[in-house]
């Protein structure tokens, strides 16, 4: 008997062509082929997808939430990146 379990995989599904793949959930599988098959069987039972990505969970790199202030807040005052920062006369259109 082995004490090892099937690793965890994250599943991303494109619901129709033209859209991004979105995280649908996770599952266990022994290898990539199985992960893909399991994802199809578990997460597209109701016609939810046209394309599936699977990636082993341990391969996902994430930022540290305790440092999210330095990570994200510097972007919050860059108002000049947004179109509303610039004043345009009302009578002008198509801009």
């Amino acid at each position, binding site marked *: 008997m082995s004490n090892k379990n*099937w690793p965890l995989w994250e599943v991303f599904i494109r619901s129709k062509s033209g859209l991004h793949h979105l995280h649908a959930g996770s*599952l*266990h*599988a*022994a290898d990539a*082929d*199985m992960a893909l*098959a*399991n994802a*199809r*069987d*578990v997460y597209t*039972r109701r016609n939810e997808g046209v394309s599936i990505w699977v990636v082993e969970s341990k391969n996902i790199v994430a930022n540290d939430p305790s440092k999210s202030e330095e990570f994200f807040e510097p972007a919050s005052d860059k108002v000049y990146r947004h179109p509303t920062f610039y004043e345009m006369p009302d009578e002008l259109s198509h801009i």
Partner: protein
Amino acid sequence: MKNKIAKYLIQLGDNCLILGQRLGELCGHGPALEIDIALTNISLDLLGQTRAYFQYAAEMSDDFDNEDQIAFLRKSSDYRNCHLTELPNTDFAHTIIRQFLFDQYHQLLLTDLMNSNDEKLKAIATKSIKEVNYHLRFSKDWVIRLGDGTETSKVKMQEALNTVWRYTEELLRPSELDIEMEGLGIGTNPDQLKEEYFEKVKSVLQFATLEIPENKFFGKGGKEGVHTEHFGYILSDLQYMQRTYPNQQW
């Protein structure tokens, strides 16, 4: 003639019905949640195919009015499924070997039926082949995985193969009806699939590092209505409600 076609459709549907029923027994008892869900998907596909065949058969038949009469109200000797589909879910090895040996046959059969000159049958085959291609991929992958997995799994798979192997030839043995339907351009004579079937099956089994068993005896009789001992028990579950409470709507 219409009645003959109905009989042929019933013969095709019976394999799907009985194997679908067998897989249905496993729902909730699989070796892992993911496998449980996958096997149920296969069962649902097969039962969906059964309904397509039987609904069409009910239109063509002199003897039946609807799919449920065909599925639930025949005598054992009127079911025409092959013995392979009746075999019990002894363990996952038997289940997956049975599935693979059926799927490979099923895929070749449907590929041929996609050329049927009966438009409705052709449409059923064209829809079903997509499902069955996936079934085959699933069962083939698992046969290889478990054959070439651990020592234990190899032994279990070899034992299962030795038991189930003798039921393969019946799949490819034509009934009189098969031959007649093939002559009319409606159906398939499974004898034509035999060579390709064994070639493909053997190649997968080699990948799985399993040995092809030598069997002197091949099971037969299903297509003539003579079934294994398991079959009566399948029917007693399948028909329980319809027999206990006849002529009611459910």
